[in-house]
């Protein structure tokens, strides 16, 4: 199909529009329509994977049409090995979220489903836009459905959380807008590929780098601009948390891959140490913060921040591993092998996909408990295994994955990043590896307090085990987590050539006169 990406973007958006028209009074029709649309989109998106050419780093499934001609803005779509897995992650998570909300959402069902469908289309747009202005439009537009999801279907303190979420991310991205416009005025094009080849002095790159950094770091989120995330997660409905953790955070990570490294390579190298320090703080310090949480969702939110630290660490450790000599040959620093540079970047990508599965699963697990007892407090529970054995099985598996147990997807990404970081600097790897202890501590301690032990709350003993719908969702995620953990090769294969290309771009100086 020539216009597969357009279909993937507009089918859910227009579908969401028609679900809105179905109206809240015909809730079950709205649910079935949404489920159908999301499954259809997922099946279509499989084509991206099956028809993908893994031997080229060029953009595939390209579509290009003029949009705003006087500013050279194009409706230009395409995917490479970096964005394609994220698009499939998006379509996959949306199906889960829509089915997960099936009985849980009673209030304004059609609106809820429509918001998630539109969100899906918009986020696919973010990952496939090849024109920075088109990218920005999707990037900002994604805030709107999320704002409403948190604000309308959220918990007690939802208004505060929704507005904080919106303003935080809005503030982060307006500076990106200014730097995009600035580069347009230098190069006369909003195309991302033109920006990637635009020569920039180190000072220009520095400003642009920090403008981008603010936008992406808020989204990832990195320490110290992470404070919106625990609020947003805790207040959002389960589906909102899943999409937020599984996909929206990846928009930040994707930004580093697509914008920061190729557009400002020298500044990225120059400031890499600062970013690595922030990543390590996120990994270690936020891990300890997670340890003391009383609220399960908050705990998982902090663990998300900690795990996303691996993504930024893996990306920026690159600059301590490799450099390029004047002949354009890749040289290693301090005897590292070229493979370890790949390890860092590919580990970061794997970590993003894997975190998408695991965080989605963890939030769904909390959602299952919350639907039954309407409490997210760890202290409400205890001994859940007695009344919900099947559920506990899944929960423990996902908890193990979250703690990075070998054989689960959580291990692969973190291990690759740590190996890469080890080549860069022993202490990076040492501090990052701390997470294997801290992560295990906060996750397993939560499991112990919620699932094992004596039943204190009489309500817990009356819990019903998961129904077949919940079983299905969790089983699919369990398969994904184990598959990624045992056999991540297909995902790595898909991205390998694109990562090689990115590596070259990131290590090639763009400073005029030094080319």
């Amino acid at each position: 199909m020539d216009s597969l990406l357009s279909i993937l973007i507009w089918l859910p958006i227009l579908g969401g529009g028609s679900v809105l028209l179905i109206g809240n009074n015909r809730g079950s029709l709205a649910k079935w329509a949404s489920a159908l649309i999301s499954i259809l989109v997922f099946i279509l998106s499989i084509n991206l994977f099956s028809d993908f050419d893994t031997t080229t780093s060029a953009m595939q499934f390209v579509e290009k049409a003029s949009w705003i001609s006087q500013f050279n803005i194009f409706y230009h779509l395409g995917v490479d090995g970096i964005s394609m897995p994220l698009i499939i992650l998006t379509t996959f998570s949306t199906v889960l979220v829509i089915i997960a909300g099936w009985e849980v959402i009673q209030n304004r069902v059609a609106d809820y489903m429509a918001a998630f469908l539109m969100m899906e289309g918009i986020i696919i747009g973010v990952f496939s836009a090849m024109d920075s202005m088109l990218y920005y439009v999707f990037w900002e537009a994604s805030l709107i459905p999320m704002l409403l999801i948190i604000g309308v279907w959220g918990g007690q303190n939802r208004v505060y959380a929704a507005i904080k979420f919106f303003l935080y991310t809005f503030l982060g991205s307006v500076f990106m807008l200014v730097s995009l416009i600035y580069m347009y005025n230098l190069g006369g094009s909003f195309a991302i590929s033109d920006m990637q080849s635009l020569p920039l002095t180190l000072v220009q790159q520095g400003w642009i780098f920090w403008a981008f950094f603010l936008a992406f770091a808020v989204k990832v989120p990195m320490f110290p601009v992470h404070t919106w995330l625990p609020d947003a997660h805790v207040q959002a409905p389960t589906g909102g948390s899943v999409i937020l953790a599984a996909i929206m955070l990846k928009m930040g990570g994707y930004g580093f891959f697509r914008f920061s490294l190729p557009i400002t390579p020298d500044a990225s190298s120059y400031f890499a140490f600062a970013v690595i320090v922030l990543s390590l703080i996120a990994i270690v310090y936020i891990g300890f913060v997670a340890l003391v949480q009383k609220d399960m969702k908050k705990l998982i939110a902090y663990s998300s921040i900690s795990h996303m630290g691996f993504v930024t660490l893996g990306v920026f450790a690159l600059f301590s591993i490799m450099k390029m000599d004047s002949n354009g040959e890749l040289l290693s620093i301090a005897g590292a092998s070229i493979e370890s540079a790949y390890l860092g970047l590919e580990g970061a990508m794997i970590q993003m996909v894997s975190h998408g599965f695991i965080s989605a699963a963890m939030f769904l697990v909390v959602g299952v408990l919350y639907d039954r007892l309407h409490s997210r407090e760890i202290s409400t529970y205890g001994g859940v295994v007695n009344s919900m054995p099947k559920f506990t099985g899944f929960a423990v598996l996902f908890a193990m994955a979250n703690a990075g147990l070998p054989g689960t997807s959580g291990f692969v990404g973190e291990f690759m990043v740590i190996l890469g970081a080890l080549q860069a600097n022993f202490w990076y790897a040492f501090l990052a590896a701390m997470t294997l202890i801290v992560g295990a501590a906060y996750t397993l301690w939560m499991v112990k307090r919620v699932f094992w032990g004596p039943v204190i709350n009489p309500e817990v003993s009356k819990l019903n085990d998961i129904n077949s719908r919940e079983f299905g969702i969790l089983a699919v995620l369990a398969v994904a987590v184990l598959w990624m953990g045992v056999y991540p090769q297909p995902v790595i294969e898909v991205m390998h050539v694109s990562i090689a290309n990115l590596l070259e771009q990131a290590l090639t100086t763009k400073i005029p006169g030094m080319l």
Partner: protein
Amino acid sequence: MMNFNFNISELIFVMPELFLLAAISCILLFDLYVKEEFKKFTYHLSQLALLITGLLAFNLIGESAIIFSGTFVLDTLGSTFKVFIASFSIIALVYSRHYLSVHGLLRNEYFILALMSILGMLVMVSGHSLLTLYLGLEIMSLSLYALIATARDRAFAIEAALKYFVLGAIASGLLLYGMSMIYGITGNLVIAEIASFASLASLEPQETLILNFGLVFLVIGVAFKLGAVPFHMWVPDVYQGSPTSVTMFLSTVPKIAAIALLVRLLIDGLSDFQHYWADLFMILAVLSIGVGSLVALTQVNIKRMLAYSTISHIGFVLLGFVTGVLEGYGSAVFYVFAYILMSLAAFGSIIVLNRSGFEADQISDFRGLSKHSPWFALIMLAVMLSMAGVPPFIGFYSKLFILQQVVSEGYVILAIIAVIFAVISAYYYLQIIKTMYFDDADKEIVVSAPLDLKVILSLNGALILLIGLTPGFWMNLSVSLF
């Protein structure tokens, strides 16, 4: 003394104005002599008159002429502005009628006064001498003062009318003072003559000084009419005090005329002094964006909030004129059109909430709107996000184009200041969304609106999204005016 030549064939170029004047006279007579049961047709006749005026103006697009001894100019900019004035006014009158009828204010003078002020705007748009411009401005302003006072039993409305009148008179005085300076040096009232006299190369330093002195007053006069800080004091009070339908009218169409005044006086007349007036506008723009964004945060009255939001939008418009390039002016005009479209929809949504004996003007009146009338809530959602500058709505593109021009002329710092305040202002737009979507209504509300209002408001809302998807055409159009 200047010679006044009059050629009957030139009348073809003033057809829109002539027609509107004739129509106003006829409607006035019609309303005076017709039986009570036919009086409701005054509204329809007024709309028809506006429609024809708009079509006549549309017909003249592409023609250009300077007639009546240089005092009246017809160009693409003028004709296009007139078309937009007429079409936006039609929308405004549709919304107005509902408001007036639920509050028992429906008197036919309202429409006649509105038409009269529109006539003034048309004259301003084509004014090519200081005198024509001033006459147009006064026809417009005096009709607007009276329009506010049509709610004569409301104390707030009378206060607003008086305030607007007194401050407007001062502004006119300042403008006239500036004009007299210009006239004193150039010895001419016609813009083209002033322009050819006021070329920096041939001026004595003394003359430059006095022209500059006059220029400052011209800028103040324009800034006052636009409501730019620090000449904004009247805006919140007049917006709040006027009947909502008048506030809507006031905050939308006259801005086009004020921009035309700016274009004629400063860009056509004193283009060599661009450096001087652009610097003044830069200060006005930054102050307007800042004050507008910050003060709006604490408002509970939605009309007052929109007043401050207008001030900050005007700041963005002025940024476009700071750039001093045609694309910058084009972006500013695009911004004005986008702003008017959004403002109309915002006030339209407020008017929908009005019902007999209930004046909706508090933000809290929007509580739970998304539950009982999801469609209107959706429109208001789009308007608020658009005003905040969130894509894919029109308001984003208008900001984008302005910022693009500002950055390309090297004012990166201005762009950064503007976006920071755009984020701050997003907070109060979000408050409206929060009120509509996250809060529950205090009581059962039934929103009922006549069909024409519903249709026009829906179209209005749809345009905010649709132009957002195809902004290129409109931007091209705006740039091609200069």
